[in-house]
């Protein structure tokens, strides 16, 4: 079941435009005039392009597999609560998104281009104006509506079988930020050296979407806005509140950093209590799996059953089960271990 997760500090009336506090990168490549499907994956390798929606998967391999796809889906949903980076890129960087989209569509031979966007406020109507040639499909403002599997479920009507990749169904799903990066390389000749991300510090009402250089220490990003970060009381959550991880000041901006959210440490700490067998995890799972049963089996080592294998393959580690657990049991961490039992 998809859940609406309300984050008050991220519920801004307007999507923030992107700011560039750091020096702009310089042109390195000559840019691309014509798209040659045979050489396009090599071009992507040359600019160092990976999946920028969080996966970090090598895009050239994805494009090679997707040759012959019939639909290109631009994933601009950004269902992670508290982040608005995909929406911001779609709205304010449409020139590069369109360039990247056209290139990818030409490379794989896709006839139809669909923008998957979050149905919130008047975003859908604004996107329809910005991209008149593409079909804009609204998705509910719930988590995890932007998961690849669930997007395909909405577009094809049925949930794809466990372990299926979109190319097996004829779809190429690309994140909006990834397409912007491709567009930057084609139009401006800049490789993947910059990363749009959401920077937020709820305790001081700070919220901005910025473009930061890849490889910069996070310390520099915080210093650019003089955010009062204190390592004892704050923690930096990289790449979202649900699927992200904690980083320190000396860690660097990756190509897959979706956001940097500075939270207070104490409310985020969890003390694991015994399971009360309420079943909130099963009710909350968007795919209807049984997280606690899976976790019990992983802990006991009974991982060879067909039911366990099928459910574990299907799980995409969205983290809703951990978020709703009343006893604060770290389910998603154990499920991550369980993926190695496949």
């Amino acid at each position, binding site marked *: 079941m998809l859940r609406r*997760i309300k984050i008050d500090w991220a519920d801004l009336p307007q999507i923030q435009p992107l700011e560039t506090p750091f020096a702009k990168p310089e042109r390195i490549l000559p840019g691309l005039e014509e798209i040659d499907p045979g050489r396009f994956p090599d071009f992507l390798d040359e600019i160092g392009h990976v999946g920028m929606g969080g996966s970090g998967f090598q895009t050239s391999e994805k494009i090679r597999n997707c040759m012959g796809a019939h639909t290109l889906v631009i994933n601009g949903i950004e269902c992670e609560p508290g982040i608005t980076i995909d929406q911001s890129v779609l709205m304010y960087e449409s020139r590069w998104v369109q360039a990247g989209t056209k290139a990818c569509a030409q490379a794989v031979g896709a006839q139809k281009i669909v923008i998957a966007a979050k149905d919130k406020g008047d975003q859908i109507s604004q996107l329809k104006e910005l991209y008149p040639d593409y079909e804009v499909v609204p998705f509910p403002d719930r988590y995890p509506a932007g998961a690849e599997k669930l997007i395909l479920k909405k577009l094809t009507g049925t949930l794809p079988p466990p372990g299926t990749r979109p190319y097996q169904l004829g779809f190429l799903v690309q994140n909006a930020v990834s397409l912007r990066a491709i567009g930057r390389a084609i139009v401006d000749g800049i490789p993947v050296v910059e990363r749009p991300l959401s920077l937020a510090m709820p305790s001081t009402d700070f919220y901005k979407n910025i473009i930061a250089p890849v490889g910069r220490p996070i310390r520099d990003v915080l210093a650019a806005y003089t955010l009062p970060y204190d390592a004892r009381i704050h923690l930096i959550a990289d790449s979202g509140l649900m699927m992200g991880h904690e980083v320190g000041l000396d860690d660097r901006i990756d190509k897959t950093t979706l956001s940097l959210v500075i*939270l207070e*440490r104490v409310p985020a700490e*969890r003390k694991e209590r015994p399971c009360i*067998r309420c079943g909130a995890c099963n009710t909350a799972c968007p795919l209807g799996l*049984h997280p606690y*049963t899976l976790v019990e089996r992983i802990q006991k080592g009974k991982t060879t059953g067909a039911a366990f294998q099928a459910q574990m393959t299907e799980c995409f580690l969205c983290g809703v089960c951990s978020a709703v657990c009343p006893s604060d049991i770290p389910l998603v961490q154990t499920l991550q271990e369980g993926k190695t039992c496949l």
Partner: protein
Amino acid sequence: MSVANPFQRIGARSSGMAAWALLALMVPSTIYSLLYRSPFALHLLGYALLGMLTEAAYTWVLKRKMRLSNMGSGLTAALLAASVPTSMPFLPMLFAILIAVGLVKLPLAGAPLRLNAAMAGRLFLMLVYPSHIVNWGTPTADVISTATPQELYRSESFALEWPQLLFGRIEGTWEGLFLLVPGSPGETFPVLLLLLGMLLCWKGIMAWRTPLAFLLSFGIATALFGNSPLFDLCSAATIFSAVFIVSDPVSTPMSKGGKIACGIIIGVSNALIRNVTYYTEAIVYAVLIGNLCAPLLDRIAFEWQGRRLAKRMDSRAGVDGASSSV
């Protein structure tokens, strides 16, 4: 204390759940005590405290880490006290609480099969002190809890109308004898209990599937037997059981389908026992039957979900022969 994703939590936390449920239980009891000038609410709190002391003694004897709040056992003891007549003396209640908390609730805490502790305590009282629990005393102005409407219906052929039961007042010739609708004090005010149940669901403390399946299947099964479902729904602690006993997360299944199946089992068993046997308080047996089926229902739900997914995996692999990569 560790910090890991997700950093955002949703819904109720387990540390407050039993306290909220106890608070919800106190609302109708307090209203009852104020209206009829009885010390029932204080008795309830006293027995709840006794339950908490039992858990404290248990953890101390077993040399485990003592906790400050033993609300779960307090709730069990309070539910037990709310489902027996006020004429029950202290010693049977003491034994019942010791058994419910110390023999059923705490030792079965991590076990593969768990039973509802309040119902186990009540079963003990029904078996060992049957006179105190069934024969509810001669109705005089002093005794404020008497035979349940079920008992009245069978023995005296006096049928109360269900709207009177729902709102807790009797009009007519019997009003002078009874101060309120007969029954155990914890089971009065079904409307209030329903509203409290909905409030608990909305706050995320109570799961709604098992109680709803229980009430619906019980109503349908009673109607199939030819009796008015509304009368049975509003009498003899059905709503009380739905909100407090059947919704217990520990002893009922975890999965969505399992919850509904368990609710149906409890509802149908309750209707069967009430209509086929002479027992009027059938809920104890019905809930325990449901608890016995709970682990199997969970296992079935897990296997079915897994097999359904595995079948789609195989059909897809058969179509294009591609191997799945993680």
